């Protein structure tokens, strides 16, 4: 680790360096955490390592406090803001979920309208339950051959704003899980001209600010806030994240909003990982992502040459709702070989020892990073070839879409807190749903609280479960019954 001030400010890691000083000072601790630099829990220390445990500490004067940062955390956040080209940056320790929720809780109070595509992550729907905002869903459009939802078009957003002049904010996925970006620049311009706040779920776009040839990062596109999942493609520890905010945001109020649900014992392991990952992105990001991009393009080309699979990429740009595509991502459409994505996902792990990010009904998604090599990519390509050779089936009769347009009856909060009862899934068609049901990942609800359950939804959930998807979100752990509203 480089210590001391460097000429390039982004080389500095104020929080990580403060922790190094703390460790070197050999402070005797009569505070929490009770493991006391690991001495109180030798088994854990052996498992995670002494160095790791020695900086798992409580907030204290020399190490600042995330709920009210004034020294090293603040400096680290300022460096992060600079690196991402935003006015403010907030370290988050409860995942990008907490960042998405903070954006929505900041922008909306009970009854306020927010314009968003329905293919949002469950964290956005949950924020609506928390604050009582009312969603105005914009149809994201569907790619006919792949069956996946795309992004909102500026025209559709404009229509939604015209029909809902009282809307407070618009939320965009920049990008979707599959790497698809809408025309965020035009959407932001429109929204700002109409006085709306622009929020971006950029969970899968951390690297946009640092690589070349990637889609426009949300803050540069004109967003007021963006939730960037540093741990996904940025290299920090799982659960650490950053919320970026621009000049139209009141940072003091946003901090209060974050603290409503944020921990008062923020993990220094997570925060220092953000500090170090930010340094790496700022200093080495360009080189890193050019390598990742080349590897992804190589794998995409090889998979497409196998036949049967479609490793889609920039070729899907051009449909309405697809303005950009993140070429470091490697989604592969599998339905043409008669296998659901989730089936290929399971075979890759169980038979070939290869773990990919997710499989849904028609696709798998592989995520590449600087840790991967061409030899590893080759294993994925060869395994896919073998699966096609050995397991190919007739694709007729397969479920051919991932996205079902919602029929909204009530706002999510009202439905979630209404009188509910449990019904077997099979008998629930026609009722209003009281909870979210989703496959995880990707964690986009198939049905959300306040939406009507249709026969198609019931069939989708049944089919997804049969193919091996993990159905989550329901009160019932087995997800065989579903909470519906009393009539």
């Amino acid at each position, binding site marked *: 680790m480089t210590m001391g001030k460097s000429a390039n400010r982004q080389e500095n890691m104020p929080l990580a360096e403060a922790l190094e000083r703390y460790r070197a000072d050999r402070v005797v601790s009569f505070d929490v955490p009770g493991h006391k630099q690991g001495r109180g829990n030798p088994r854990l220390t052996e498992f995670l390592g002494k160095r790791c445990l020695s900086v798992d500490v409580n907030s204290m004067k020399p190490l600042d406090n995330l709920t009210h940062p004034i020294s090293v955390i603040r400096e680290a956040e300022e460096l992060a803001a600079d690196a991402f080209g935003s006015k403010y940056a907030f370290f988050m320790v409860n995942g990008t979920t907490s960042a998405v929720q903070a954006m929505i809780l900041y922008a909306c109070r009970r009854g306020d309208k927010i314009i968003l595509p329905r293919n949002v992550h469950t964290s956005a729907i949950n924020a609506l339950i928390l604050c009582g905002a009312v969603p105005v869903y914009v149809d994201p459009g569907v790619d006919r051959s792949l069956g996946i939802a795309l992004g909102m078009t500026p025209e559709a957003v404009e229509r939604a704003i015209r029909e809902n002049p009282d809307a407070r904010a618009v939320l965009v996925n920049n990008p979707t899980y599959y790497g698809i970006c809408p025309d965020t620049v035009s959407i932001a311009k429109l929204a700002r001209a109409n006085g709306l706040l622009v929020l971006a779920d950029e969970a899968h776009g951390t690297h946009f600010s640092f690589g070349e040839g990637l889609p426009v990062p949300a803050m540069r596109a004109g967003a007021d806030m963006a939730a960037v999942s540093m741990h996904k493609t940025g290299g920090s520890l799982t659960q650490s994240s950053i919320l970026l905010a621009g000049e139209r945001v009141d940072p003091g109020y946003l901090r209060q909003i974050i603290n409503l649900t944020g921990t008062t014992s923020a993990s220094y392991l997570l925060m220092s990982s953000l500090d170090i990952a930010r340094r790496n992105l700022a200093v080495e990001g360009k080189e890193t992502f050019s390598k990742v991009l080349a590897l992804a393009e190589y794998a995409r080309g090889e998979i497409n040459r196998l036949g049967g699979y479609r490793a889609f990429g920039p070729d899907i740009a051009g449909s309405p709702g697809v303005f950009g595509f993140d070429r470091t991502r490697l989604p592969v459409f599998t339905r043409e070989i008669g296998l659901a994505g989730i089936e290929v996902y399971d075979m890759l792990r169980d*038979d*070939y*020892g290869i773990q990919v990010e997710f499989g849904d009904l028609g696709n798998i998604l592989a995520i590449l990073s600087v840790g991967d090599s*061409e*030899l590893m990519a*080759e*294993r994925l*390509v*060869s*395994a896919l070839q073998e699966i096609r050779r050995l397991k190919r089936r007739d694709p007729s009769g397969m479920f051919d879409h991932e996205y079902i347009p919602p029929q909204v009856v009530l706002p999510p909060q009202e439905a979630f807190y209404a009188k509910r009862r449990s019904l077997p899934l099979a008998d629930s068609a026609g009722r209003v749903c009281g909870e979210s049901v989703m496959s995880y990942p990707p964690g986009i609800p198939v049905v959300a609280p306040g939406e009507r359950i249709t026969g198609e939804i019931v069939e989708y959930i049944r089919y997804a479960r049969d193919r091996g998807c993990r159905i989550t979100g329901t009160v019932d752990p087995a997800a065989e019954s579903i909470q519906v509203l009393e009539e």
Partner: protein
Amino acid sequence: MELWYTEEHTPDVRFSIRVERQLCSVQSPFQRIDIFESKEFGRFLTLDGLMMLTEKDEFIYHEMIVHVPMAANPDIRRVLVVGGGDGGTVRELTRYPGIERIDMAEIDGEVVRACREFLPQTASRLDDPRVNLLIEDGLKYVRSRENEYDLILVDSTDPFGPGEGLFTREFYGSCYNALREEGILVNQHESPYYPDYTRSMKRAHRRINECFPVCRVYQAHIPTYPSGHWLFGFASKGIDPLEAQLYRWERLGIETRYYNPELHRGAFALPNYVISELKDDA
């Protein structure tokens, strides 16, 4: 001055050879390549510090990886060697006049170059006109071939490092697909003795089993490999090495120092603890 080469066979077991001088040290994009000269073993090649071959005992490995499948089917015409950059396997293959073509897919051209310069004992036959040398990832090469080879020999490093992809189910499946109807796959199968190697052996064995109807394991005594007890995997689409008409091989009149028809049969007779490890599914 004393200069010793040391390999850690386990964190608690070391194997050392006194070195006279170092002939070559190269860092390739894949691994570190060293060639030393010693009194006891002659010249020897290490990759990432692990022993690959010595001039004194390489004949055992190379004879056993080649002559067992060649005796099981003397009609083999087309052969693919995956790895084998030192050339020893190719050298043994070129002794069969019936072989028409030997493709060799070695990922690291630097290994071939170093061995050509410093290990002519193994590399000398790489220039045989039947040899087609490809500097390429074996996994990538094999998956592009179909119904083309009578024999594939996997002469690889251990499954930690660039050789990792050659111990996977996707590789063995691709080999199956690249072999003809009478095809045979032989691979270096690690060792049954030290636990780290046993794990690799079991995993390789299980994965080959999933891909080929006939799977057998045979052994050889290789003094400079960890524990000295080394295994080879024999897999085929139907040919059973124990039903080989070994008189056909004897008629070829190939002179060998380790291999012979009696040993061919005996090599497949495994110790009980090895049999039970191979049966164990974990």
